[in-house]
């Protein structure tokens, strides 16, 4: 099968180009995109990409596969390309390319840092641990599972236009994860930091994030919850 891969080394190349590589895919097997990429790398060892766990847990191999962001390791070929068609691999859109499919995620992590993604509790710590009822714990389901692969944020036009000001779906999902946590006592301070026209309110609810999340999470719903909390606090 023909695999078309985005190639760019900013130190040498004037501009990016697409390299076509013919890869022998074994008959009768539905390979993952990452396996095909490994076969392509056997043909051309200079191709650069990130990968680690190869089972959708580490979030390293987020890339744009035939126009849609996803994790190469858990995306089967049959899902993204019709038989006889070309597999097209590009880096995550909207972030600076370090080399080929490797992008610079600094600005993505900076937005993540902004939401203070850790528990803040100013009450004295109990002897053993801070307890939480099963009901309160259940509120964190669908929030804590995010692996920060950046598939959602780099599929969001609001993040493309204002990556330095709009926190983006991944960061906002984590913002709500700590707003919803019964053990966190900084709810008001967290909300005060989100009340500007960019951090949350650049979300236009187009749900690109929901469409591509490899873990099946719903950042748009979390952003809606943040808005509701801001309204009940601010009205």
């Amino acid at each position, binding site marked *: 099968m023909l695999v078309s891969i985005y190639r760019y080394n900013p130190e040498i190349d004037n501009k990016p180009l697409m390299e076509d590589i013919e890869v022998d895919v074994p008959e009768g097997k539905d390979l993952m995109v990452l396996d095909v990429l490994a076969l392509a790398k056997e043909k051309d060892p200079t191709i650069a990409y990130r990968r680690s766990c190869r089972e959708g847990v580490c979030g390293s191999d987020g890339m744009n596969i035939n126009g849609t962001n996803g994790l190469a390791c858990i995306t089967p070929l049959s899902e993204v390309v019709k038989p006889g068609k070309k597999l097209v691999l590009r880096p995550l859109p909207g972030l600076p390319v370090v080399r080929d499919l490797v992008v610079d995620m600094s600005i993505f992590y900076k937005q993540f840092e902004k939401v203070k993604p850790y528990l803040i509790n100013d009450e004295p710590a109990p002897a053993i641990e801070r307890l939480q009822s099963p009901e309160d714990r259940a509120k964190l389901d669908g929030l804590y599972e995010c692996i920060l692969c950046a598939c959602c944020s780099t599929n969001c036009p609001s993040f493309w236009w*204002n990556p330095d000001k709009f926190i983006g779906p991944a960061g906002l999902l984590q913002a709500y994860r700590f707003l919803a946590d019964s053990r966190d006592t900084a709810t008001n301070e967290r909300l005060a930091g989100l*009340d500007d*026209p*960019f*951090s949350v309110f650049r979300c236009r609810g187009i749900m690109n994030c929901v469409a591509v999340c490899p873990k099946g999470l719903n950042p748009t719903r979390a952003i809606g919850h943040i808005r509701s909390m*801001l309204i009940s606090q601010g009205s």
Partner: protein
Amino acid sequence: MVTSVTNLSRSGLSDWIIQRVSAVLLAAYTLCILGSLALNPEMNYASWRALFDSNLMRIFSLITLAALCAHAWIGMWTVSTDYMTSLQFGKSATFIRVSFQIGIVLIVAVYLIWGVQIFWSS
């Protein structure tokens, strides 16, 4: 917290609420005008004039005009901060964006004053 001094209310939440409430008002006004046209198929200048001379309609029209101005400003401000940034225009982005925003403020102000004149004169 990202600071912004050129959006309508300084607060993202407040802008968001104003935009939604003004959208509902604009929809209600549109339905009201379409409804009165549908209920009076033989509408002429005199009856059209009488409709807008009523105090209730004047108040409704002016509130809707204010809602339209707020809605337009929030929307156009958002467009300018999405598409007129240094990513698209480099170093001249701030000049282009602020000029555009001043232009929009002037247009909105002209329509507001002109609209008040039209609805209040009889």
